[in-house]
């Protein structure tokens, strides 16, 4: 098994004149739960569709588990996917979906699939079109994990779910990866959805990758500084200012780098949600700077 689950170089996708993903260079380590965060329309779905081979790149390269996405049946078998809004065949029953999975996937784990259906209390005879949003998402997840992929890709899996269904979905997902060694990439426009489950984060804004890295490293590398305006103006070099706001006396900054030793500067830890928000607002204020941090 490779140590890299996804490797993209200069990856670009254009639809006509609109650029959905621009010059994305990214390396995602294996064995992680990678959160892909960004506002709606940032290019998350495009990146995930490129990763599972539903789309072909306009420029650049992408390798998933060391190979071109959807190159052949073997590559398809190694990647599980749940598309946005968890589409299922409305006219087919829950049981039909499992048979469909069994017939189209050589690595299909029938025991895992039926156990999950039982645990979720889904009726195998029920038409998938009559399931609730949460049940549909769980069925789609069952289909994706029972093919026993090495990589599971989920596009906004919990966005349309109510809080209870959201938690149940993530419980099922986490139980799967605790038991089977699979990498996961999941997207969301809400950091709070991903905070507990992700250990690696990619922030995508305006079709560009803003920041990427292990959550622990990102949290350790970023600080919030509260300082008098004068002190804030003389920060040591090497500190990268992600976000700043000023009153006439005081400055509040989110920075990346070692915290300054200046006693006038109050250094605070920053939470994941605030960290991501800092990058998102940076994207809104300055349209162009491309910051890529890859490990």
């Amino acid at each position, binding site marked *: 098994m490779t140590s890299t689950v996804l490797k993209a170089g200069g990856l670009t996708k254009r639809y006509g004149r609109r650029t959905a993903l621009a010059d994305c260079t990214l390396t995602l380590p294996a064995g*992680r*739960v990678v959160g892909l965060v960004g506002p709606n329309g940032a290019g998350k779905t495009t990146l995930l569709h490129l990763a599972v081979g539903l789309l072909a790149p306009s420029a650049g390269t992408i390798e998933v588990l060391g190979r071109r996405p959807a190159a052949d049946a073997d590559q398809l078998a190694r990647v599980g996917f749940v598309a946005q809004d968890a589409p299922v065949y409305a006219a087919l029953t829950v049981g039909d979906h499992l048979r469909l999975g069994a017939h189209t996937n050589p690595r299909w784990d029938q025991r895992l699939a039926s156990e999950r259906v039982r645990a979720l209390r889904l009726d195998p005879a029920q038409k998938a079109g009559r399931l609730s949003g949460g049940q549909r998402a769980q069925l789609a997840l069952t289909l994706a994990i029972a093919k026993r992929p090495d990589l599971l890709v989920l596009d906004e899996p919990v966005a349309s779910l109510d809080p209870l269904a959201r938690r149940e979905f993530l*419980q099922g997902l*986490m139980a799967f*990866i*605790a038991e089977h060694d699979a990498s996961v990439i999941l997207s969301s426009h809400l950091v709070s959805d991903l905070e*507990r*489950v992700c*250990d690696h984060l990619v922030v995508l804004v305006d079709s560009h990758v803003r920041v990427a890295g292990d959550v622990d490293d990102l949290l350790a590398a970023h600080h919030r500084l509260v300082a008098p305006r004068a002190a804030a103006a003389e920060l040591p070099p090497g500190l990268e200012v992600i976000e700043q706001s000023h009153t006439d006396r005081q400055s509040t900054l989110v920075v990346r780098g070692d915290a300054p030793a200046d006693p006038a500067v109050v250094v605070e830890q920053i939470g994941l949600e605030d960290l991501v928000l800092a990058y998102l607002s940076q994207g809104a204020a300055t349209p162009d700077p491309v910051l890529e941090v890859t490990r």
Partner: protein
Amino acid sequence: MIEFHLDGRSGISPYLQIVQQVRQAMRLGLLTAGDQLPTVKDVVARVAINPNTVLKAYRELEHEGLVAARQGVGTFVTATLTDESLAAHEPLRKELAAWIDRAREAGLDTESIEALFTSTFRSLIEESA
């Protein structure tokens, strides 16, 4: 067996919350040497967190010498934190209650009492650290 619960608003990282909850349970005598901790799968299936977070917490506890992992079986408590300190709890609690009563008599309201306690507690901990 104990169950973990995570507080998303506490500001304490999930892995640390698990470590603290195990220590707490050991201090209160809920977990003693030989008891098994919930498996990683059970924890994540219950609280929906990344399995690596649980593994990290268990590794930390192992590092502290409180638990030991047995390959293919699970993680077991190896130490006991209750010992004689548990016996000291009750008299200490009574003293603290008496102190709170005195603070009330001195005219402090609930918030002031809490602030005074917290700030004193923090500064003492920081001094000793």
